């Protein structure tokens, strides 16, 4: 049996596929980075009031929140939905979960090798800031992290407070994608800070109302 390794063979079987794989890998990584830049623009629109601003015309998602972790210098735009396509561009918010900043469980997922690689460095007590289109920053404090199986993760349905769960694949250093374990960092909204912050406009408004009523009363008295 004669098999001769010749230059064309090497080029065809090794160099071209090699380059292709590297290209694929770099494409995924760069998509993750470039998309966040594009999203920045869409996020500005969202904050300006266009809540369904699409980052690019054919996108099936839109930014819904900004997630920052000052200690680790993390600043990410969170997208609506957590389908595979969305996660390539940024962390995705699960539609079935509650909106960040609102009561209940909010689920945000991202790839362990791109956006959510930092999850492994979060410590209990770390602050996570989440800003949504409707509200200013809500401060979440990391309470715990857990490793779960992707099929039977359940979250206690506590509607008295706001929780955010950051989900990514586990283990972090595994090269093969598609494992069944998930790493979940749970954080709870800081009630005091979040509360006063959220209710400031309300207090202001009710004061305005009070003044308004007062002026009417005065008016009537004047009559």
């Amino acid at each position, binding site marked *: 049996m004669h098999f001769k390794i010749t230059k064309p063979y090497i080029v065809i079987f090794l160099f071209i596929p090699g380059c292709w794989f590297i290209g694929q890998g770099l494409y995924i990584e760069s998509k993750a980075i470039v998309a966040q830049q594009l999203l920045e623009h869409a996020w500005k629109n969202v904050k300006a009031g266009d809540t369904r601003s699409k980052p690019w015309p054919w996108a099936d998602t839109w930014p819904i929140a900004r997630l920052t972790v000052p200690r680790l210098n993390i600043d990410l735009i969170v997208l609506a939905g957590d389908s595979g396509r969305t*996660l390539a561009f940024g962390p995705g918010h699960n*539609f079935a979960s509650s909106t960040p900043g609102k009561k209940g469980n909010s689920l945000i997922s991202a790839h362990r090798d791109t956006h959510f690689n930092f999850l492994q460095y979060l410590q209990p007590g770390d602050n996570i800031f989440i800003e949504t289109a409707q509200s200013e920053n809500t401060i979440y404090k990391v309470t*715990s992290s*857990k490793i779960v199986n992707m099929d039977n993760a359940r979250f206690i349905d506590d509607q008295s407070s706001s929780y955010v769960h950051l989900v990514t694949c586990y283990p972090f250093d595994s090269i093969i994608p598609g494992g069944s374990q998930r790493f979940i960092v749970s954080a709870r909204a800081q009630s005091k800070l979040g509360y006063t912050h959220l209710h400031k406009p309300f207090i202001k408004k009710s004061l305005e109302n009070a003044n308004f009523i007062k002026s009417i009363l005065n008016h009537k008295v004047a009559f």
Partner: protein
Amino acid sequence: MLFINTHFLKRRPRREYLHDNYRPRKSHFFIWSKRIIITLLLITLGLLLMLLGNLAYGGTRTTEFQNIEFNKLSQGSMLIKTNTSGIYQQVPLRQTDVDMHVTGMIVRSSIKQQFENTSDSWIEAEYVFPLPENAAVDHLRIRIGERLIEGRIKEKLEAKRTYEKAKREGRKAALVEQQHPNLFTNTLANIAPGESIIVELEYQQVLHYEQGNFSLRFPMAITPRYIPGNIPQQFTLLSSNDTSEKDMAETISFSQTGWVHHTNPVQDAAQITPPVQSGPNKVNPVSINLKLNTGLPLEKLFSRYHNIVKQQANDVINISLANGVTPSDRDFELVWTPQVKHAPKAAVFSEKINHDYFQMLMLTPPNDGAHNGQPLAREISYIIDTSGSMHGVSMTQAKQSLLMALDRLRLHDKFNIIQFNSITDQLFSHSQIASFENILIAKQYINRLKAEGGTEMAPALKLALNKPADTHYVHQVIFLTDGSVGNESALFDIIHKNLGKSRLFTIGIGSAPNSYFMRKAAQFGRGSFTYISDVNEVNNKMTSLFSKLESPLMTDIKLHFNQNVVTEIWPERLPDLYNGEPVILAIKSDKPLQEISLTGTRALSPWSAKLNLKTDNTSKGIGIFWARKKIAALMDSIHDGANKEKVRTDIIDVALTHHLVSKYTSLVAVDKTPSRPVDTGLDKTRMPVNLPYGQNAYKSFGRLPQTASSAELNLLFGFSLLMLGLALAVLLRQAVPPQDTTEQS
């Protein structure tokens, strides 16, 4: 034999002829490059081996993290913070006794839970527990030694204030609040060191009756699992993800949740003060005693997950657990089937409270139509979501479901397929009969579907619902989507306004469909919601949905009173009926009801039934049943745009009259005499966040998404290939024909 063809390397020797003094220089450059290449080759090989190893190792990876988590494990129970930081104590639930009494359709349950404060300080304890979704909680008692304190129903805020006041004054108090229809919290104040308290809760629920079977479920994870000392055993329980037990995961409440606590408020399990224990196996034991008084001869009676002992005494069957007590690790479910000829077609239970008469009416429409009557001709519009978010597995599931659906069509049925993403497209301009060719065309159309673009749901819904009313067909819309939309209320509006005679059935597809949207859409569409989370489930779930859709349904059900009475009936709008489902109504009237008649449309022909309601026997709990139905209906009306404040006052009104816990009312029990000296501090218990209490208390978002890209794998593989290629190329370059070298040297 492997020959290395050096033909293309011959250029160098050729150069040799030009420069006469050529000699392959074994210079430093060549020696080093050779070494480097060999090293690179070895590294590449190593990387590839690692890759293979990783593949092979992937399956056993779990064992590794189990060991890491081992000593950081926490136990699922209530914890008290002690004065020393980092040290926690548990409040064990010593014993839970459940007594249930089934009469007719009503189950009355009482739960006695015995708490014990094993710490040496006064504590306040709080814990969350699940109850059946339709549970009406109406009594709370705390028993301290010989004394008994009865709870009162109060408006939520007022109850809270009463409780806080008692707490400050050092009185014993308990507060039961509803967090969700199926989730309650119980807070206890001022438990003395070493003291044990019994909290007694009573609730009522209605039996589930479908396809001739009655079933009763008690969520056993009501009591936080408390497991002393033996951590390794508990550890295996908590982390067991064995796929062979996957089916059990549904029922075994939280030992199978797969939660492994990584870092938790409890920093070190070894520091938890071990509480007094009664025995290694009798941890948080639950005893169940059930009195079954069905009034019907039974064909079958069994418990799904526990061994039981049955004792017949006249009309009553006494049922208890075979082992006396059981650890509360799985729900208790009892199922019984009356003998076929005695299967209840209709039942009336009534109760008189003050001047009001309450009736509970259960009626099963005869299901003979499925066999001898003309099967109902249906016109079905399938809507399939082909937006980008459906890409991948979701699309596969949706396609499979749709293909299955087509196979179930009968010749006289009509159908059409509508797909939508940024644009809406339909297969036929009008619905076509389900002929062989049409189905073939449809299957080709389905196979060609691709998921991309946005999610513009409104036009598709309008297209499907806006059908000219054809009275010969029952129009059903089957809607497959992951529901990734933001404009939910606008869509509900469209469904509400365009529904007409059509019925909308939603099928949730994918890892995390927006089930709120789909459940509500189905409610507005007067259909039902089915959730398919896995490709393996497609067959099962679709089959049960279709057998339901195909069986003759009864529409336009109305109730007529043949006498002059003032009535209040819940639910207000009667839903359509499918085979095997009963109508259950709660009626309140100012006079005893004599006779009522029900009318409806079944298989295009009118149907009616007359019921004689005159009955002497009165049953307990019908008033409560009526009140619970009213509260549920009022809560739902908020979604239909009812005034929230009005609903709140209405609910408070009903709940106070019937002594029920609701979203706006709580039960509070306060001791008259203070027991804690006011100058002694009160420690607040704390519950770890995400404490596993049982599946009913949980929200599951289905399968979590895939969160690893193949970037690293691609890069690694690419580099490996390049390295290999480079190494080979250079090696070949060096492998000069042997005769050349010998000649030269």
